């Protein structure tokens, strides 16, 4: 055999044999104390493990290696994030370390505004909730020494307006009619006071926790220019604002210059970018020694290491090469091994919800017409066995909680029925729903519409006779959990003659392409997708997410009653208005509900800090300035 042939044959052998060898070092398959627990957990467990108390003597300096999520590198710097780039990995784990929002949340694990980390005092509402006065806290400065001023807040708002004038998809937080459309005027009354006049009265709770938490003051004295060496422009002039936005947006889409462009070195957060490898997506941050927040960073360097798979990440974690990383459900059984290797492990459902996204704009094979029928969505939800998925070792492995709504159980607004399935796993009920609406169900074949029409016992408007039910479902390629869930769902659907073809895509691909507001030209390419869910703000209204015009309405769901309820949540005085919205969405199924997976983190026991900063990890929010190496 020639050398080349030998090497190729060996390549196959290496692929098949070396990997299991490393598995042996990982353990014997004994799930250990933490791993044993999942199998016996009820399907509503709210935490995984316990938080260790703060310990050790704080030391300054050192480096921490943090794992990035596979396929989810940050590709946008400017904190006015377009929908195509928007994720918590970009906003919470990348931008927030450099650019602090006006109002910070959560507070530990609690879904509420954290006054201590916010740049301003809580806003005052007056004039029948039509005037908002924001007082910036004294003492906050940019890394160039300039103070964080009211003008920086106004600068952000002017840039958002400029971005939206160019394209509504340029800011993921945008919903037509809402911020900043709802501002009659915004003025920097003095250096530390911003006054907003609103066009209508708004629910103060919503306006603060939803709208103002998305405001990120930007350094106007450095960034208000249209080119690198251009003069500082008056950003109140819309033309200037548009030129500034164009310049910043372009620079923000160029990862090769992220670390070298002086623009991004002016920060008010505890860290600034020091390296970004465009080939691997590795990036590093160094402490901002001029940070003026409540806690100066102690750790000098944060290295965010990229991975192509959860297994590769876990392997590095177990071998001690990472200071901290998330642990996916496939590796929950190895928690004992992690603890033996000197890690703390803690997890909880994140502040959000998981789902299979439905595309109501996919006209291919009448997918939009079919998904537009509530009874079809109910039938599909009947095919999802949340308790079974949670118990399955091949899926959630016990590390998840049943969830059927937009507010997780930890939210004070959550429906008491959030963990009660409105359409529990019941394939017979699903079949009955289809048959009652004029479909001839052919198990393992092709179910077809026999009674077209829009009557109560007919298939529904726009669905012709002989129509089959055929969807594609794209799932996030890592972790393995998404593949297992998608396959199980497709398998159940097949039993009812519903064809669902499944295929993997990376996280970045999904949010950039299979997202109707961000990529309307691709709306005909996908019917369903699942990538891990949405995070929510403390006041869990779905404005922007499930209202007809929301820029974050990925599947273009549209329902008049939902719009009405969201409007009540947003404009009403009643803080509990959002509860009615949550309950309606729970049963109206804008998406198909999946269990709320625990986000589990492991960190070395040499890393410590206040307990509440680690309690916030499952919300994907990092506050490393509070951490130290012992």
């Amino acid at each position, binding site marked *: *055999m*020639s050398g080349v*042939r030998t090497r*190729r*044959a060996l*390549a*196959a*052998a290496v*692929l*098949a*044999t070396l*990997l*299991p060898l*490393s*598995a042996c070092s*990982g*353990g*014997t*398959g*004994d799930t250990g104390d933490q791993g044993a627990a999942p199998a016996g957990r009820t399907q509503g467990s709210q935490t995984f493990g316990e938080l260790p108390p703060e310990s050790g003597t704080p030391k300054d300096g050192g480096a921490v290696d943090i794992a990035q999520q596979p396929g989810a590198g940050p590709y946008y710097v400017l904190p006015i994030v377009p929908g195509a780039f928007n994720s918590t990995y970009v906003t919470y784990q990348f931008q927030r370390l450099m650019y602090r929002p006006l109002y910070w949340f959560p507070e530990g694990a609690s879904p509420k505004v954290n006054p201590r980390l916010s740049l301003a005092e809580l806003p005052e509402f007056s004039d029948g909730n039509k005037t908002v006065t924001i007082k910036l806290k004294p003492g906050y400065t940019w890394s160039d020494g300039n103070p964080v001023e009211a003008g920086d807040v106004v600068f952000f708002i002017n840039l958002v307006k400029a971005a939206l004038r160019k394209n509504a998809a340029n800011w993921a937080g945008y919903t037509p009619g809402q911020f900043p459309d709802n501002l009659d005027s915004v003025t920097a009354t003095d250096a530390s006071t911003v006054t907003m006049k609103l066009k209508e009265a708004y629910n103060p709770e919503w306006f603060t926790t939803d709208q103002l938490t998305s405001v990120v003051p930007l350094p106007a004295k450095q960034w208000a220019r249209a080119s690198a060496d251009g003069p500082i422009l008056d950003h109140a002039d819309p033309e200037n604002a548009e030129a500034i936005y164009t310049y910043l947006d372009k620079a923000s889409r160029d990862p090769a210059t992220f670390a070298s462009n002086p623009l991004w070195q002016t920060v008010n957060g505890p860290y600034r970018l020091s390296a970004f490898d465009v080939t691997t997506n590795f990036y590093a941050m160094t402490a901002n020694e001029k940070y003026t927040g409540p806690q100066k960073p102690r750790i000098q360097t944060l290295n965010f290491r990229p991975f192509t*798979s*959860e*297994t590769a990440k*876990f*392997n590095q974690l*177990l071998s001690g090469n990472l200071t901290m990383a998330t642990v996916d459900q*496939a*590796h929950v*059984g*190895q928690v004992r*091994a992690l603890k033996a290797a000197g890690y703390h492990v803690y997890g909880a459902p994140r502040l959000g919800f998981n789902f299979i996204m439905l595309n109501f704009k996919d006209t291919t094979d009448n997918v939009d017409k079919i998904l537009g029928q509530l009874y079809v969505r109910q039938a599909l939800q009947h095919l999802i*066995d949340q308790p*079974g*998925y949670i*118990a*399955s*070792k*091949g*899926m959630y492995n016990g590390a998840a909680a049943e969830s059927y709504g937009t507010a997780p159980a930890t939210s004070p607004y959550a429906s008491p029925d959030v963990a009660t399935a409105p359409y529990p796993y019941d394939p017979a009920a699903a079949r009955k729903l289809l048959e009652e609406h004029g479909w001839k169900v052919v198990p*393992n074949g092709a179910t077809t519409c026999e009674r077209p029409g829009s009557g109560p016992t007919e298939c529904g408007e726009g669905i012709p006779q002989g129509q089959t039910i055929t969807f594609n479902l794209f799932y996030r*390629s*890592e*972790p*393995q959990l998404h*593949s*297992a869930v*998608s*396959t*199980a769902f*497709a*398998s*159940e659907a*097949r*039993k009812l003659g519903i064809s669902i*073809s*499944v*295929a*993997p895509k990376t996280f970045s691909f999904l949010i950039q392409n299979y997202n109707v507001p961000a990529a309307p030209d691709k709306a005909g390419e996908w019917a369903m997708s699942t990538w891990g869910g949405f995070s929510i703000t403390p006041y869990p209204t779905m404005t922007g997410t499930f209202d007809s015009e929301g820029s974050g309405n990925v599947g273009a769901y549209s329902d008049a009653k939902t719009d009405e309820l969201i409007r009540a949540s947003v404009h009403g005085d009643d803080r509990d208005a959002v509860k009615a919205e949550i309950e309606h969405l729970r049963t109206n199924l804008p998406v198909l509900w999946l269990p709320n997976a625990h986000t589990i983190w492991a960190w070395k026991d040499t890393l410590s800090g206040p307990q509440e900063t680690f309690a916030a990890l499952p919300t994907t929010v990092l506050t490393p300035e509070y951490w130290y190496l012992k």
Partner: protein
Amino acid sequence: MTETATARPVPELTSGWRLAVRSFAQNRLAVLGVGIIVALVLFCFAGPHLYVTEQITVDPVSSLLPPDAAHPLGTDAQGFDVLGRIMRGGQASLQIGLFAALIATAIGTLYGTVAGLAGGVVDGVMMRVVDTLLSIPFLFIVLIAATRFSSTVLSLSLILGAFSWLAPARLVRAEVLSLRSRGFVAAATVMGATKLRIITRHLIPNALGVVIVNITFQVADAIIAVSLLGFLGFGLNYPDVEWGTQLSEGVSYLFEGAWWLIYPVGGCLVLVVMAFNFVGDALRDSIDVRLRRR
């Protein structure tokens, strides 16, 4: 003294092909390779009729069960019986390997023959195209193509075949460059044979040895390539599966001690690739008179 007729041994009539077959049959590794291939083909295609398992309906409750009497090789993350899954995955892997090899060899043979016969500028341009394509990493091209098309046995075969013809094209061109200066080609040319006739009746049949040897290596390469695609998440999707996807899914449960998701399918992959390489090596040794045992 009477003159007696002495029986003189009559030389056995042997053709080149018969010598090649004899040489091949005497190669123990080749016979072993053929045996493994036949056994795996029977295992994958006849096995499911003897060992019937559910390979469509997911059973989350039975996921990741270790081997026992009911499931000799345990179950995977979806609760599928792993032994049955390997049979199903093997069907796809072998089919893709064979189809891709045939496609690559067909394209490469035709391309190489035309280039070799044409010579001059045409040959130069055609081979620079090959050089250029060879300089682009194979996996890079195939991954891009795989993301653009849905993954089916046919599409993966076409993708792999369409980007694997470069090596056979070079081999066949070299063979044709040697053949075209032979007398029989010159004779055919003098007799007015068209280029097409020279290619189809004289050059390709005489380069067939190289082509056949190459097919076996192409099959092995294609099986590795499709396994690699599957391993990277671009293989077949539910309800279909191939060995690379099985390995990839198994690796996710590496630390759970689920060895049955890795070793059996990995062993099959190694065996089939090794077997095709044994056969290919033996065929080359048999067909090439310089390497043939005498």
